[in-house]
């Protein structure tokens, strides 16, 4: 779900409707929105440094869009040339001058954690439920 500000910022264009994707170049001004889930699993076509995204934020300015998140050790910031959001999945294309590639965000769940994430952590513990797993990831914010 988008924030209130994000929703009402579309009010300037009375012809707008919710069918227009958020990367509509007609939408002007700076808008900041956060993805609704606290932790995402991130995959990329050509970037093996991405894995976990916490507090994923999309900033849309007049001439560019940036996507930022905390990845359990540091903040990541990338320029997006295209974005797409379908249900809980968010995808963006990174600017070519930054290396390009596609980045896909899906909400972290236990299955994903166990199969794709845990082995790439320093010492990923076992979790019996998703809530504890999410709390575990969120606790890394204190080391930021």
């Amino acid at each position, binding site marked *: 779900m988008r924030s209130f500000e994000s929703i009402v910022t579309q009010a300037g264009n009375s012809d707008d409707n919710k069918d227009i994707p958020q990367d509509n170049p007609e939408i002007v001004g700076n808008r900041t929105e956060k993805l609704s889930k606290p932790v995402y699993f991130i995959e990329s076509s050509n970037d093996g440094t991405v894995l976990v995204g916490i507090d994923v934020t999309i900033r849309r300015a007049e001439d560019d869009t940036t996507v930022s998140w905390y990845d359990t050790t540091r903040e990541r910031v990338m320029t997006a040339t*295209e974005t797409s959001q379908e249900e809980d999945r968010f995808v963006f294309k990174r600017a070519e001058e930054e290396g390009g590639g596609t980045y896909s965000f899906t909400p972290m769940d236990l299955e994903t954690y166990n199969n794709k994430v845990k082995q790439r952590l320093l010492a990923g513990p076992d979790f019996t439920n998703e809530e504890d797993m999410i709390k575990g990831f969120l606790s890394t914010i204190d080391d930021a």
Partner: protein
Amino acid sequence: MSLNTLSPSNEGKDDLSNDNYNKWQNLTHNSIAIPTMSEIQEKSANVVATLIGKINEVKNFVKEKFDNLSNEMLTELTDSALVHIAKKTIASAKKENRTEAESAGIRVAVSSVVVQGAMEEAGMEKSTGSNPILELNQGDTKSDLRDSIITLHEEGVMLPNGEEVAELAARVIETNEKEHGPKVNLSEVIRALNGRELEQTSETIVRPKAEIICDHSHIENQRIDIINKIDRGAMEFRFKLTAPTEAVKALCEKQPIGEDGRPQEVTTPSGATLKRGAIIFEKTSSDTSYKLCDAFVFEKDGITVSIADPSSRDESTKGISHIYNDSNLIRTAMGLVKVEAPSNMEPEAIEQALNEILEKDLGIPGALDEVPDEAEKEYKIARYKWQHGITGELTPEQIEQAEKLEREEVFPGYTTLVEKGKHQEYLAEYGQDVRAIHSLTTGSAKSIYRILTQGLMCTTERYSRGVMRNGMSSITDFDTGGADSVFTRIDNATIRQERTGTIVVFKPEIFDRTDWYSYDGDNYGSTSGEVYSGRLSSEESFSVIAKAPNKYPRNEQMFRTGIGASFVESIEVEPNQLEGFITELKAMGLEEVNGKPIEEIVVARKKPQGEHVPNLSIPHDEPTAEQIALEQELAEKQATIQAIISGEKSYTSFNEIAELAVVADDVENAFKSMVQSIINQGKKEQLTSDLKEYLKQTMKPEELQEAASGQAPDAETAALFSFIHDTIGIDYGALYDEVSSQTIPSPDAPPMSEPPLTDDWL
């Protein structure tokens, strides 16, 4: 030359305490005459004349041996000869219970060096080398040097130009210590560290740490870190080799296979057996540990030495990230050597053993010796070139700047070379509001407290000092090399307004450090090959910001090891979180920081005034026409908000209300106030109807559903949706039902290729 001239009489001062002197006076005041001032002066003149005579003897000897020497070179060679004589005289004497003759000989030899060094300091002699006093101010000769200076002071010995020898000598030592830091032996550092407890801040327990400055030809950053692992009964020494020495290469080649098909044992030069092990981080006072990489390990005299194998983790290369890392190595582990000694071992024994390991097994002789001036100068020049991205030779002006680099502690237990005042040049050129910042994402009072009291540590610093949470951090930055540094970004004040969450703003003095590197994009702090060679110099780091001042920064800087709390200028937080943070911090006992009230350090972020970010150019002095137009537009909108709130302006459409609310400083308050005013005007029915249509058009069905169930992405949205429901009477569930019953084509997602499966990265 008569030694008796300089040797003290029985009523001299060698072991004369005040008490002894008084006693001696009472006994002898009638039998021994107290020397007059002129007698002291005469004695002083005799002493200096004698010593200068000795110096000239040596100088003449050198002159006879070498032809065509310049005066400076002659002086340098004379210095070397005098130092050699002094060292030899000391070495040949007993360490304790010296005979009178030995003591006298040492005093003459060492005092000659002191007088020679004093003459150079006074400008009476010029040398191409360093002052000879500094050669004796270390190791086994340091104590005798100090005794000599004290004696010369007590005797009031002066140079022919009237300057006191002891004062000049002390100045030489003091100047050197100011430039290089006082030279302390490793054993002294260990002893001091042994006396320190674990450092506890809030919930964090950190092992105490110190460093020793040492050889720079083989050891990265010229230092060895020493960590007191009190909780494990060990003292850890950690350093990185700039490149594998021949000795290390020989140790770390794959073990040869014997005739029996089994790996043969490898023995180190000092006779220890090499085994396979690992470099592990161990959490303080816990059984928890994490492996960094595999290692070659040997033990010697109770000391364990681990040489990292950065090509292997769990005996495999699998899992080492190759993105931003063309080396396929665990870059943080490259060159890493960890030496661990039991805490109950005598510091001198540890120092001796470590010296032997460094020399014999690792091929680094004299690693713990004091760094000679020439080597220090070389190091400063190399560092200056690295920091400023200079590949060729330095100009004389640049060399002068490089030589001015000073060593400063920038994080507890970590010193580096700084270029004092350099930040002022950057601010003058690129904007007084330019700062390095570090994002804490949402942050918490605990993390703010930690930063204000401990500063920021890089990943390897945290882990090596035992600070670990739950192992849920990604290992990627160990592979790229970014784990050795703290990440920051360079912002100006306008961009900072765009940020969300909690950010740490550092004082501009941080840019004086010479141990940071920078990229104009997110490169994960990589130290690998092509990526690293494309890094920005410090000047380029700022010019990148100047080119696009209103662009959200993708630059990154990596400051080695840590950033001390003293570098924190402020911590900017979300306005609605400020009060809570201040209350919590005070409850944790943090009322002030560096003499300033906590309220002046932890501050609310100033939000941007309008939708548009002013297009600021450098310099920031005169507003552009665009800026002026934007500000006028904003002022008009804010005036309209007030007019609606006061009832002066009638309600027209919800679109207008929405457009006005988002430019307000406080969106929630502005919206609520306008709505209340509209209701007071008797326009509630129209407002409700308009808002229903508006929400049906702008919100997705699932968003309406979430709003109906009370979900919201943030507190402000939750408050506003709740207000709309309670005050205007909007039923989100009913809207959802309405919308769901209609056939609305769902948008096609833009065609994007599916990202490959994770396994393709390995």
